[in-house]
């Protein structure tokens, strides 16, 4: 295919990716959607999930993203993710350990306010683990 989609993945800390690809599958809040070249302009928020970057033959490159949004415009696709990392570099055990820590923290939380915050952090980790499990299976 002659047409390529310009894809940029940006984290608060740095520009993670900026390449031309064939297709990207984006985990939107209202369901996954694939973005091909010439896609109609769209803005969507993301949920925790996996971005699949398809380029040429072979397996798609997979990246874990947590929160953020995607913007498709005539120039291409831009994903602003709060956190993103190639799936191959994600260490599941460290999340499991973090989950365990947080669960203990939630149990020890003294006031409602910090408890709510910890529960939010815990649920965040749980959703990451869910995604990881689904893709490991």
């Amino acid at each position, binding site marked *: 295919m002659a047409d390529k989609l310009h894809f940029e993945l940006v984290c*608060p*800390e*740095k*520009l993670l990716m900026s390449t031309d690809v064939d297709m990207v599958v984006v985990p939107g*809040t209202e369901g996954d959607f694939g973005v091909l070249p010439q896609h109609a*302009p*769209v803005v*969507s*928020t993301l949920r925790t999930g996996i971005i699949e970057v398809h380029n040429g033959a072979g397996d798609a490159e997979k990246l874990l993203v947590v929160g953020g949004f995607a*913007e498709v415009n005539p120039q291409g696709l831009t994903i602003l993710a709060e956190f993103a990392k190639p799936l191959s570099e994600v260490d599941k055990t460290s999340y499991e350990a973090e989950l365990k820590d947080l669960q203990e923290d939630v149990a020890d939380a003294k006031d409602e306010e910090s408890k709510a915050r910890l529960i939010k952090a815990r649920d965040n980790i749980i959703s990451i683990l869910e995604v990881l499990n689904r893709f490991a299976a």
Partner: protein
Amino acid sequence: MANLKDLRNRIASVTSTQKITKAMKMVSASKLKRAQDAAEAARPYAERMESVLSSLASSMKGQTGGPKLLAGSGADQKQLVVVATSERGLCGGFNTNIIKAAKLKINALIRDGKDVTIITIGKKGAGVLKRDYADKMVEHFDLSHVKNLKFDDASPIGYRLIEKFDAGDFDVCTLFFAKFINVLTQVVTPLQLIPASINTQGGTDLGRACYDYEPDENEILEDLLPRNVRVQLFRALLENAASEQGSRMTAMDSATRNAGEMIDSLRTTYNRTRQAVITNELIEIISGAEAL
């Protein structure tokens, strides 16, 4: 006459001071490089965020009842001032400048009869502001354990601000930090975090009306605005870190130079005094010999 031994001691002490300032200068030069890179790496995210937000905000313009983080709570009686300073001293006028600007603003707000509360980030600002506004300081964030600022370090502060806003603790939040221009210049900048100061006049966005929004605009804004607060805060803190290092580098550079000048003048005095002592001794010996 200045004692020779005293002079020697002073020269020794100024020399060791010079060594320290020189080392500090080198250290901040390398830290500055890193801080600057980090600030630059964070720029694309913040810029994209801004452009999406401004196109969303301009499409929302004129409608009432938008998200509070954008439209404000409809009042400006309760003002929150966030002052971001460094954790360490010896960085020239960096902290002083930020605090001076913040104080000016705080005093002006108090004169206007507003309720002011202060949140400090960084030890240095907290110490100074406590002297004048101890009763207004509500919270302090310590970043002294942070070496290289990550988004994860800034976002808890952002969450806390949003929590306080939702609880109605303040109506307007202004952040004071030093914007990094170059090594010699840092400009103290007040940035209004809440309600978000977004340029809704973005003239580039005329063609954007045809966007599909998923979910709808309102929900996206609800999601983006808190994110934007954290991103702006993160960016400001990165700029601040770069400014701090730049300021320290300049300060230490001039301190090293001053110490060098001082050593030169002390050494001249020392040599003169030494010669005077020798001459004196000679005169004493000769006149003693002549008297015999």
